[in-house]
């Protein structure tokens, strides 16, 4: 349950979620040197549980970026919803240093990336994104914005 906060850096888990709560893209990103602890399952569970709150926060604001919607132990969940709330973007992180504006632009850029990808007529919406280009671009975005 608890992470070894030894060493410097943070863990991030980015997930795009389709309409039936199915993940369509997952990305684990860490600024830590060693990836000793595997958070993936825990991250998935926390992200899944946060969806309830995402749906609740949707109605409280007009903006697509919902800020921190949930937290569990040392993990924070930031959320962003696509137009018509069809696709949800969640970012799980244990970082205390993240800048809200940086996160916002991270989500906006990721959303743009997703939109471009979704324009592909061969891509069926709400299914898993399997694209090395998308993967690479998402990695770059994470590198750019996440400390």
């Amino acid at each position, binding site marked *: 349950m608890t992470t070894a906060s030894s060493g410097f850096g943070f863990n991030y888990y980015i997930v795009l979620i389709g309409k039936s*709560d*199915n*993940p369509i893209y997952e990305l684990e990103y860490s600024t830590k040197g060693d990836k000793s602890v595997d958070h*993936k399952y825990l991250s*998935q*569970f926390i992200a*899944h549980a946060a969806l309830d709150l995402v749906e*609740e926060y949707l109605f409280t604001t007009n903006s697509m970026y919902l800020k921190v919607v949930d*937290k569990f132990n040392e993990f924070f969940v930031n959320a962003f919803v696509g137009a018509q709330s069809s696709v949800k973007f969640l970012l799980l992180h244990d970082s205390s240093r993240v800048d809200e504006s940086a996160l916002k632009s991270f989500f906006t850029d990721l959303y743009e990336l997703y939109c471009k990808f979704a324009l592909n007529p061969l891509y069926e919406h709400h299914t898993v994104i399997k694209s090395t280009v998308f993967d690479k671009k998402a990695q770059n975005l994470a590198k750019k914005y996440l400390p």
Partner: protein
Amino acid sequence: MSFPDYEQRTDDHKSLLILVKAINGSKSSAQLSAKVFNKLYEKIANLDELCIEDAQGMGCQRLIRLRFKRNEYENENNDWGDFQCHRKLLGLIAIGKYNGDIRELQEIYNHYQTVVEKYSSTLYDSRCILFNIKPASDEQPQNACSLETNGDTAVKSSASTNSSSASPCFNQSNDVDSQSGDERVTNNYSRTLCNEKDHPLANDITNSCLENKLQKNLPQCLIYNCVNNDIDINLFVDKLEKDVRDLISSLFWVLESKRLDRSYEKQDKIPLLMAPFETKALVGLDMDSKVFRKKCLGRMRKYMGDLSLLAGLPSEALINYGNSIDILRSANDWLWLASALEGQCVASLSLLFPQTSRRKSSLQRNSSLPPSKFRQLQEEAQNPNKSRNVGRKFILPNARSSRSLPNGDPIVAKALGKFLLSSVNEVYEKYKEACCHYAKYRNASVIELECSFKAARMLTFHEKYLYASEFIQNSVFICFNQSHDEQIKRLSVIAELYSDIGYHRKAAFYKRFAALKAVSINVNQPNWEQCYNLLLPSLEGYQLTLDPIEYDRRIKEHNFGWTGIHLQLLQELVTTAKRMNCEQISMRHLSFLLHSLFEFLTPNQRRDFAKQLETLSTNCGEGAPVPLTLENGIIIPSVNLTKFPLVTSFKVQNLSPQTRPIKLKAKHRESVSSSPFIFTPLQFSRPSSARRKSLNSPTSKTLDFKWAEGENCQVLLQVYNYLPIELHVSHMSLMTDGIAFETYPTSLTLPPESGPFPVQLTGTPRASGKLDILGYTTHVLGVKNNCKLKDLTNAKKMKFPHIYTIEVVPHLPLLEIACNQLLKANHNLKSLNSDSLAIASSVNISLFAGESKTFAVTVTNKSVNNELIEILSISLQTKLTKEAEKALINWDEEVIQNNLPLPPNESFNFEITVHGVSDFVHKIQKRKLSSSQLRPRKSSGTSTPMQHSNYSSPLHHAKRNQQNLLGTALANFISDLQNGSNSSSSTKSKQVVSEQAIVSSLDEFMAKNIEVILNIEYSGGSGLAAGYCRKCALVVNIEVLPSILITQWDVLPAEM
């Protein structure tokens, strides 16, 4: 304080706490069964509200709320009673029974006294309800007793309690009643005792003596005499209610007196009320400082607020709370400030929403309760309601319900307006503040937890779900030392709260969290069973169903949720079930995991899970395809591994032609179709509904062929193995419904990731009628599977019907034909070939043109089930005309009929005569010119019986017109002859050449081949009765060798 009450609500602040406790004696007769106690508790707990008339009799009423605790209330919690009055245990109801024995009574009473002693610091009043159960042998005097005391069997002996001295008006109304009651109870006892002749005391002690003793010794005792050995609760319902009401009113008056006691205001020093943990911190405090005095006053104010709230005066309480908040804030007394804030919230809420969560106040109607009494009860219950309705709508200063708040007092109204929280949002803010203040004290974490729960429940009730979720979230992170069981309970309650606000995913998360807590590595003895039972309900929140068919459906609809999570959950379930030693359940989950999530697994995972399943099954036996029912009633649906192996084709095979049943043609066709029309579009004989059904739904497909009883029938399958391991499929057989069907299981081994492989499933119908083929059964990876066609994953794609329906006809005889005299031919039939022919054997016959041969055909009845062959008919199938057939081949029909019926395993012979029919004419000239024409002429124009004498007659022209095709060769030849006779010598020279050619090319005169099929239709036994027969065919290849050939002749002129 470490016993949080997770079920607390905001309303509980307004409730008097009463403990209901079972008191048992040492003897078995003096022990109340848990069932009876629970029933009694429920009856008592139903009474959660009570209206009490104001003492001044002005028609004002107080609504008192009650909270009951069953059996136990921790003293630790009771100690917090000064901090929050609703935590104080004010009343006690002890329930016990005794057997008419006064010593027993004494023992129980002593026990009761110790309980009272335990809570003496807070208890206002208490009652001991005792059931006096008399032994069955004393029935006669008992009846007399109960008759005497009929009307009021429950005899009361209420007396003032230790604390009642403080209440001036306590028990006044009851005094007279209770006195008379006392008399009665004593009477009753003395009688009981006198009846017990063997009792040593009975003779010694006089009535008056006993009277005194009981009065002294047993105050607060209510004794219910039971006529039967059994405690019939329904008999006492009204009395019980009355007594409980009595206790409550007594409690109320004590409370009211305390509330009205303003003596503390006159004191120089107000005592400092303290929470239990604060006593240690008291040392070294400056008792005279202004802050300290403020603290004392603020806390006392807050306490008065609590009392007012309990006494049903929320507006008064609100003012008290408001004042105390002001004072405590300035004194920086955060803990008590938080408590006061909580009080303010509750008071405001009860003013804002006076009707929230109000429940019935009368006892429940019970079927055994006489209607008249019930009506009376109802009226009683309604009466307070009527007067309460006046105050239903919110009137700010609710003057009617409070004596101490005179109507129209502007100062009070102003104060009320100042402190009253006007909306739920404000209440939410205050609760948040209260939680923040509580959080400053480590010892108050339970209070904070309860406060969070209360706030969350309240906000849920008012549909402020986001706010509620904040409080629930807060309650997760409050940490204090708790046992694992307590932690699990807390998490379960959190999950419950989340599902109350519709956050099912959150709820599922905490349910799983609780489950993992039960087996976390810190626990000495992991409780796997508890873990499993907690884990199972969480699946729903993760959109994970354990029904493989439902799961497949969701996948098709792209509505399957988070498969990664499903995988993890299922693995957890598998492990947990294994640790619980429930291998069957573990196997079920594992097979579900493998089957339903197959497409989401990596090849490695597939291999691992398949191997795991195999080893699990070898350890604990095979899994059966039945739904498993857990101890708590949850049913885990069966999982049939229809994907291993995956069936891609399922074809029901017809029987082989020889054994295929054929419908006999009805001789009396008229009776079948009663319609006068040859064709009518209206088919009355066929039920239209059945047709429509078969058209619309692909659920059942009726096959257009039939199987026969006792015959080996087959279904052909094609299977794939998509598992990365070698798959052993054993006991693969058909699954059928309807008539009896014997299956012959097959086993096969499929190499990894390969296919398709053909599989034949065979079986024998053991009865006649409709047979439904539902699917097939397999044993794969140690799991038995019933794979129904409709449940196959690719059923829709493959257009499998749900059921194949096939008709099975009764037993039919089987016949064998043999011709031993003739050579068997191996050659395949070409010209007359067709699938429907049941060729038993084929023979060759060669004979010269004009020759006749006779051979015997042996017919043997080879029926397995002792069927007689009752009818047999032979027909010919050739390409010839009927007449030609007759000339070629014939047999004696009589012999056959004489030998019928033919018993099993017996045979008879009949003779078939074959004639080598030929026209003997051969024309050489055309041989080279049109050799291609020869053959068709041969085959088509052979076997006509010929009377060549006719053809040489001069009348041949006339006849030739009537010749059929068969005679054309001859006709041409004759016409050639005629031409030749008139021709020049050049033709003659030609003929000489051709004569030489005859000799050289004699071998070119080809033998004629004729194929004849003898069709034999036969039937017998029950199959005949059902109107079916079988066919069998004998192929005879007749080779007609040329014998005499007439190549040329001349017509000589008659000699003159």
